């Protein structure tokens, strides 16, 4: 069992080899050969906290050709080795769904960690405070998992619900995240709450509304940090669909925020405060989307 110790880590014990494949095929081959004995390294911000590893090999995928953000067919494809800073600086994502992905990426830690954290790691590690999943959920993201025996596509929602750490097989890795181009014109908003600027987020809310004239065609609202895994608030979304957005509807939607999800305990505050915070963030994000 891998253990995380938060003080004094300088060497991950138990690691006997560090491999840096220069292609995806080679990375998958190495993963296949070392099934169950290898850790996949993206940015390393999570693995660097592991002190004792039951695995003996690290496979660093930074040079495996997964650092792309590109348009392909009906999707924007974001390779799993893309870092938060790459998303922030990406022209392709600048006007996409109101910059929600860039906004989310810029909320990750600090510029120092944004230079390291990768898309694959942010999804796989599933820290409650992971910033990208709520934004990607709102955009209807899908995830491609790949191994030597082939690839499979799964919705991000399903992957998070199932827990990536068990859902992703031992010979598989996260290849890319697919964002449907149809989300391009979605009105979005992304808000976080933490007690101090540097603290981990206590609540993250992302919202996206698709309009047909004045009528809301589709509404997606996702919450992270306060719930684990990050989840879509389906009941809150359905309330808004097919209707013209009013302040009463927004209020009703925010009040129903916990119809589908349960709060996780957070020692920093009471359940009541966090519940009220999430509802307020839902209200504010929806107000911003409907402006």
């Amino acid at each position, binding site marked *: 069992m891998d253990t995380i110790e938060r003080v004094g880590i*300088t060497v991950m014990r138990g690691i006997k080899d560090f491999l840096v494949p220069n292609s995806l095929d080679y990375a998958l081959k190495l993963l296949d050969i070392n099934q169950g004995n290898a850790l996949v390294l993206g940015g390393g911000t999570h693995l660097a906290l592991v002190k004792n590893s039951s695995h003996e090999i690290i496979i660093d995928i930074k040079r495996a050709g997964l650092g792309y953000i590109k348009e392909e067919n009906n999707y924007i494809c974001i390779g799993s080795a893309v870092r938060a800073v790459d998303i922030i600086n990406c022209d392709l994502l600048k006007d996409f769904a109101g910059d929600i992905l860039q906004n989310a990426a810029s909320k990750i830690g*600090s510029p120092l960690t944004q230079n390291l954290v990768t898309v694959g790691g942010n999804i796989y590690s599933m820290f409650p405070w992971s910033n990208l999943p709520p934004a990607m959920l709102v955009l209807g993201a899908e995830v491609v998992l790949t191994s030597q025996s082939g690839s499979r596509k799964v919705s991000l929602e399903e992957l998070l619900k199932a827990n990536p750490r068990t859902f992703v097989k031992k010979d598989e890795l996260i290849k890319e995240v697919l964002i449907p181009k149809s989300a391009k014109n979605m009105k979005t908003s992304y808000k976080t709450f933490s007690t101090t600027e540097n603290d981990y987020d206590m609540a993250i809310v992302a919202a996206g509304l698709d309009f047909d004239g004045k009528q809301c065609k589709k509404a997606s609202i996702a919450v992270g940090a306060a719930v684990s895994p990050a989840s879509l608030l389906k009941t809150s979304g359905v309330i808004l669909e097919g209707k013209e957005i009013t302040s009463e509807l927004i209020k009703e939607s925010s009040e129903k925020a916990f119809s589908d999800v349960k709060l996780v305990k957070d020692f920093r505050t009471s359940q009541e405060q966090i519940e009220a915070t999430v509802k307020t963030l839902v209200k504010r994000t929806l107000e911003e989307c409907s402006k």
Partner: protein
Amino acid sequence: MKVKLNINGVDKDLTIEPGEILLHTLRNNGYYGPKHACSTGDCGACTVIMDGEAVNSCLVFTASAEGKKITTIEGIGTVSNPHPLQQTFVEEGAVQCGYCIPGMILSAKVLLDKNINPSEEEVKTALSGNLCRCTGYVKQIKAVIKAAETMRGGQ
């Protein structure tokens, strides 16, 4: 295992453990500028510049830095010929215990290398990953803005 790193402009062939963290490697090889503090990427005391980007060296595996250019505080100036940032940090009294300062100066250097005329907001963002528990941040922000002026030729 063996790795090649370029540290402060000098090529180094180093023997490391496969699971070794860059901060550990640097300090074991005499680069004491990067400080060992939180070990979780929260405080920025271990900041180094890796291929032009400021990173927490406590979160980087040394083996994954193979072939990269690493700059520590030792690599940007000397006592007799300090970097403008080092000079203005002294002049502005931006240093108290000094533990966070190497990281802070390196984060500021990356900013000034890209933008010689940053706004106060941009300086704050650039330094947001470097925590100081002594002086606060006012003097350090001033020092960075003053260094930028110096580097622009006193404009």
